[in-house]
């Protein structure tokens, strides 16, 4: 190619090419606008999300519960207590009560006694510091049609003048603490597992919020914190357990944990205590003299969706 032609080609290229300098200027402009806008939107939020820097870092780098040393767990408990004090002004006690040896919990619900009062639902909300604003409820009572066990025909939102209604029976559903739980299997980070006393627990500081467990659960037992759970300071239950009802954050999944803060100390779960009809029977499956064993051995019990192989620890029966 002759020199002139080369030069012409080059100048043509230069005209159509936008120089690197202009591009960098443009990117810089966009970048600064983005940064300013981001700063404006985040300026109102407290730095470190309302925690001290030390607590924020401690929270972030915390290991999974089963891998933490006892000292680390103590630190984590103290952090939770401090955060709760900062956020709600309430002095809570966060414990790490270990499982009682020789105990595996089981639960039975008498569906001929359940009248659909929903006392259990709200007792659970109070006991477990469930977010009032985020509308979290661990227990759902289904109003079933007499003559069928078809869940699709059930009504979740029944609201008659009085219960029980004619031609219906009532079946509360909550986490079944499956022995072969699909949720434990599905979690990619092992944030949920089954404890030796049979309770399937969640480490709320480890959960990444992918909701794989919620797809896997056949009982709609797992619930997600779509927003930050809020509850008034006077309604906070200060007796908490790390794996149970201690304050949780948005973006993590939670569920019924058989009131681990109570049951590991020998107390009944809040729902069992609340039921005025004695429809809920709770106890130690390994104790041959327990009420739950009597029910399982003498009543016509069934488990929900047993055919999926989940081995739930919650039975239903009628008498």
């Amino acid at each position, binding site marked *: 190619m002759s020199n002139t032609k080369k030069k012409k080609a080059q100048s043509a290229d230069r005209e*159509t*090419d*936008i120089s*690197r300098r202009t*591009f960098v200027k*443009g*990117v810089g402009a*966009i970048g600064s606008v*983005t940064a300013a*806008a*981001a700063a404006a*939107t*985040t300026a109102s*939020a407290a730095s470190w999300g309302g925690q001290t820097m030390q607590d924020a870092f401690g929270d*972030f780098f915390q290991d*999974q519960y089963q*891998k933490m040393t006892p000292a680390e767990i103590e630190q984590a408990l103290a952090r939770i207590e401090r955060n709760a004090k900062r956020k709600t002004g309430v002095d809570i006690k966060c414990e790490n009560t270990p499982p009682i040896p020789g105990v595996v919990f089981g639960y039975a619900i008498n569906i001929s006694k359940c009248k659909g009062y929903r006392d259990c639902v709200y007792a659970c909300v109070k006991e477990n510091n469930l977010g009032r604003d*985020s509308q979290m409820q661990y227990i759902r009572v*289904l109003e079933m049609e007499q003559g069928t066990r*078809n*869940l*699709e*025909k*059930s009504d*979740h939102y029944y609201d008659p003048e009085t219960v029980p209604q004619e031609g219906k029976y009532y079946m509360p559903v909550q986490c079944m603490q499956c022995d072969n739980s*699909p949720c434990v*299997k*599905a*979690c*990619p*980070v*092992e*944030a949920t597992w089954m404890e030796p006393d049979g309770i399937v627990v969640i480490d709320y500081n*480890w*959960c*990444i*919020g*992918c*909701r*794989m467990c*919620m*797809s*896997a*659960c*056949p*009982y*709609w037992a797992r*619930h*997600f*914190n*779509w*927003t930050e759970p809020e509850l008034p300071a006077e309604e906070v239950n200060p007796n908490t357990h790390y794996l149970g009802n201690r304050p949780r*954050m*948005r*973006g*993590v*999944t939670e569920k019924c944990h058989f009131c681990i803060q109570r049951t590991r100390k020998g107390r009944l779960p809040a729902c069992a205590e609340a039921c005025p009809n004695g429809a809920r029977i709770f106890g130690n499956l390994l104790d041959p003299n327990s009420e739950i064993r009597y029910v399982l051995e003498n009543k016509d019990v069934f488990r929900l*969706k047993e055919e*999926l*192989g989940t081995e739930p620890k919650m039975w239903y029966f009628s008498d």
Partner: protein
Amino acid sequence: MVFLRLSGDVRVLFQFLIGVIREMFRGSRRYWGWIFLLVALITQAVFSYTRQMQTGLVVTGMSDQVSWGFYISNFAFFVGIAAAAVLLVVPAYIFHRKDIKQVVLLGEGMAIAAVIVALMFVITDLGRPERIWHVIPYLGRMNFPDSILAWDTIVLMGYFLLNLVIMFYVLFLHYRDREPESRLYSVFLVIGMFWAISIHTVTAFMFSSNPSRAMWHTSLLGPRFISSAFASGPALIIMTLGVIHNATRYQISKTVIDSLALIMTIALQISLFFVGVELFTDFYNEGQHGASVRYLFLGLEGLGKLRPWIWAALIMNLIAVTILMIHPLRRNMKWLNAACVLTFLGIWIEKGMGLVVPGFIPTTLGEVFEYSPTSTELSIAVGIWAVGMLVFTLLAKTVIAVELGELKYKEPVRYTQRGF
């Protein structure tokens, strides 16, 4: 690395990388217009995502009842696109199609972009994305081999790295005017072919492993995913190659398009066959098993937001397959492009929202509760698509420059060669 020698090669690599980056910043007015558009779309998504990070996923339309929505729908779809890149690798190297070998690098660029898009959709779907490091083995705690999501993380990251390595290896060799000869390279390629199938099968398993969800718990889901990926992937590749053919100096041979169109046709036929099989199985002796499909196609309890979408998707796919089955039309670029658009959109609907959302309706306790994406979700999704297009644009720019010889390694003039 057996195919690189020492410091001299490192210098060449460095020059190559500089050249690549420089190439990305060089372009016509149209190119820059396109880049700025993409950056603008990404910026608006950043705002929406910031809002989501601050308030939580409550800004989306998801609920406890329908806990996966638009994000995971797109994730499933784009993993399929990524897997379809293998459709270029197989004919190029197994069947020694020289014309397809031309576009292999572009296909791999698309795979990389698609994997990035898929991973970004998963990360935006997380409730606590800052805790994503929990899934890294040893650093965090990966539930391997039980959790299918853990498998998915591994295979997607692996596929991403595989494609990145292969693509840049070949590009680097082309940059030096050489062809890949090493045996190890062939091994990588074969691994890549199987890996591509595996990423999409594992994604399918992520859904079909749940016995609680009757619509997904079928052995057919894996084959459905692969067949729809092999229909929508080539559709996108054909459209993209068309754009490259018209907008750049890189000319694509018609035979490449014809081969891709043929693969797309067969895959779409199989995909529609699977849809038909699904409809028969669910409706012939209808029990509760078919409740989700009934919701999708006919509505349930008076609710049926997805009905118009799925029927549109089905009709689009049927029109597309008809066009594709008529040889003269398939060979006509206008008709082919129309079929590609219909296929792509149809499968995006059917495999995305048309699969993920009905899996949750009715819920495992029989409740029918609907879902529709909010503007925040759409805004973030548009931004992530823009990221994918940006990544592909930049990679394609480099590939084209290298293939056309514009970006070439110039041997430094040696003292002895200069003469005197």
